[in-house]
């Protein structure tokens, strides 16, 4: 699309939206948000990017293939369930560490997996449709 305003705005917006997506992902455990929302948000950002700059730019920007992102997400989500097995608990039971004033646990990895899987799915469809 040939519109200078849109282009300029997009350059600003995409970065902001991606940062916001990461923020939504991270705060999801305590505040409204989480992997799904973040993935949709990031997907929207890339859609905007793809509409203004074309799918090739998006492909170059994300470097890896969208399918790989989705697969990584699924793998991460599944892997997040494994520590529980090692500790002789049911698959995907949350395991937590308490390194400082905050908690770190497998559900966070799981949420990251959800984020990547959904984002990968959206991106692959978006780019395939845009390129066609």
């Amino acid at each position, binding site marked *: 699309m040939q519109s200078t305003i849109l282009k300029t705005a997009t350059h600003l917006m995409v970065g902001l939206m991606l940062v916001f997506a990461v923020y939504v992902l991270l705060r999801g455990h305590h*505040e*409204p948000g989480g992997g799904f929302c973040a993935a*949709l948000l990031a997907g929207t950002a890339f859609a905007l990017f793809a509409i203004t700059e074309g799918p090739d730019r998006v492909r170059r920007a994300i470097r890896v293939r969208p399918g790989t992102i989705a697969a990584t997400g699924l793998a991460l989500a599944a892997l997040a369930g494994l520590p529980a097995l090692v500790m002789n608990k049911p698959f995907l039971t949350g395991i937590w560490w308490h390194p400082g004033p905050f908690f770190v646990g497998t559900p966070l990895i799981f949420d990251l997996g959800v984020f990547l899987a959904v984002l990968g799915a959206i991106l692959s469809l978006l780019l395939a449709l845009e390129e066609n």
Partner: protein
Amino acid sequence: MESLLALVVGLMFGSALFLMLSGILVRFVFGFVLMGNAVNLLIFASGRLTHVNPPLIGFDQTIPGAPVANALPQALILTAIVIGFAMTIFLLVLLYRAYDQARTLDADQEPFLVEMPETSDQQVSEKKEQA
């Protein structure tokens, strides 16, 4: 309150069915999206709409202080929305592909109405034999 919502859901559902029955594939997709919304509302109402506080736990608490909205249907709906989204996109792609093949989006027209051959198996095997 909830009974009013029940009426809204019923009307949305009926409209969605009506759209899907039209035989125009684009309207079918619209109907599908509408139905998804109706069903999400239904699940939402099944957890009751009595409390308006979001199911969050305050920073100085370990359990919700005041009564909060039912979290369970919300979790169900969240996944339902995302799955419904994925299905909608898939339907759209299917629509795209169907148009590519059939050159029409009217499901009552020729390429969509197929007559099965009488003895399909035999004909298929004969065809293979010829090949």
